[in-house]
């Protein structure tokens, strides 16, 4: 357990060493709200939806997603600097290592997005405490799941360029085919297949739950249990499948 915490600690500390990246991301986040959110909400009118608040909540989830993905790039950074070999030689089991990295990747994304969520809540205005706590827990699991997914792809692909491209494509597909930026009804109306995919998308689950918790008046959620279960399944799959794949790929030098 102690070793697991140390692996988590390492990843969290390392992330916050990238000060330039963090500052730029914060500027990006604020600009998205202050520019795109404000301007686009004047243009987009959806019945029963305050698009500005809707967008701000979705933006928080998108930012959480991209921060959690970052751990995969760290894996390549580790490999490039030979740190991977060092980590593999430590008295830490492979499971502790991958679980620690997965949790560390999620946790640091969550810590990073925390102040941004506070900004979102300030913009949104009102919060339902119990449902908000549930939605925070869901975002927490979502971040771990994304981080596990990123690690899984990173060790499977073994090429930082390909990984970079795949993450770009995934980002485009997962985020655009979700309710992060537009309600499900609009997605479904544009194309039923898109709607079906968006209904089973973890970004949709996270966005809908966050809006539910942040009390954004959007017709998004009748039953929060379904997206919550969806996020738990996503988290469990990529955390535990990730552990197995990581274990198999790295033990004995298969990562080289």
């Amino acid at each position, binding site marked *: 357990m102690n*070793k697991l915490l*140390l692996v988590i*600690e*390492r990843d969290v*500390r*390392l992330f916050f*060493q*990238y000060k330039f990246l963090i500052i730029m991301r914060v500027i990006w986040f604020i600009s998205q709200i202050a520019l795109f959110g404000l301007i686009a909400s004047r243009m987009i009118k959806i019945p029963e939806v305050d698009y500005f608040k809707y967008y701000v909540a979705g933006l928080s989830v998108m930012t959480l997603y991209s921060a959690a993905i970052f751990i995969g790039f760290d894996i390549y*950074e*580790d490999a490039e*600097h*030979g*740190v991977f*070999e*060092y980590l*593999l*030689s*430590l*008295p*830490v*089991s492979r499971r502790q290592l991958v679980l620690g990295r997965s949790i560390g990747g999620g946790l640091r994304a969550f810590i990073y997005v925390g102040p941004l969520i506070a900004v979102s809540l300030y913009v949104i205005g009102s919060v339902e405490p119990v449902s908000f706590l549930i939605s925070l827990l869901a975002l927490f699991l979502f971040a771990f799941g994304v981080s596990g997914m990123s690690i899984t792809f990173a060790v499977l692909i073994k090429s930082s360029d390909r990984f970079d491209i795949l993450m770009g494509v995934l980002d485009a597909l997962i985020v655009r085919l979700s309710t992060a930026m537009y309600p499900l009804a609009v997605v479904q109306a544009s194309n039923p297949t898109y709607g079906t995919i968006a209904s089973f998308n973890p970004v949709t689950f996270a966005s809908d739950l966050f809006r539910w918790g942040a009390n954004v008046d959007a017709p998004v959620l009748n039953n929060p249990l379904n997206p919550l279960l969806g996020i738990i399944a996503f988290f469990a799959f990529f955390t535990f499948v990730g552990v197995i794949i990581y274990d198999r790929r790295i*033990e*004995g*030098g298969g990562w*080289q």
Partner: protein
Amino acid sequence: MENLTKKFGNQFAVDHLNLDVQEGEILGLLGPNGAGKTTAILMLATVIRPTEGTAYVGKYDVRKQPDKVRHLIGIAFQEPKMLWVSTPWDVVNWHAKVCGLTTSERKKRVKEVLDAVQMWDARHKTVHALSGGMRKRVEMAKVLVQRPKIAIVDEPTAQIDIVGRHKIWKMLREMRDEGSTIILATNELHEADVLSDRVCIMHRGKLLVCDTPKKLKDSIVGGDIIDIQFEKAPSPKAVEELKSFKEIVNLLQTKPQNLRVYLNHVEDVVPKIMNMFSKKEIAITSMHMSEPSLDDVFAHYTGLTIEEAQKNEA
């Protein structure tokens, strides 16, 4: 190590290595780059898996019980393994934590070790801002702070100045004296000679010979060396006559006025040599006796000096 083998494609990086490392010794693995030292070490550290054979660390098999092996081993890699955004203090302190040092012990030892490797003042600089030698010292500091049961150090003093080199040697000896077993991979002849209790010479993945440095040097036929400098170049006839001495194994004319003589029983032969040249009125300006080095041992087994072998591998 029992038939420890690693193949990359069709190439043997380590070729059926059989070797026993004694508890509490410093074992030097000497060989040029590409000899298989680092690959053997990475297999011992469970970072890569053997293609064939295995190794036992303590009583644990590196193939079957890698987790147990990792608890006994500490490794300082040839190339420092750290992210450029980290600081020496972060690197060594976190390493000490992972290796299970208690808080008070860790604080004390991290300071001691960073002081000893002259990195205390630079402890909060990022790795990016450190020189190659400083990074190497931080890499060494990890093992020194850990004091593992079995310490593996790969070219521990590469890029380190002579003062730092002696400090690291001293600390490795102290670790050995406190009960650690040390496996030292190096291509530095002097380092292997002065630091190792036993030296194993590797070339092209194979283990050629393994013994104490003294025994290795003594084992070479013609194990004494004399460098003779003459006032004028000796005649070919005189050189031929010298060659006919039964104690002389080999003779090289390194310069027209210089001869390098490989021989046995140096104490008996020197008076005979001086006598012979005196009779021929060939003046000797200097005569220098030396022992063979590990390079001579390497050359004896491979036909190449380490430098030549390194060039060939490159």
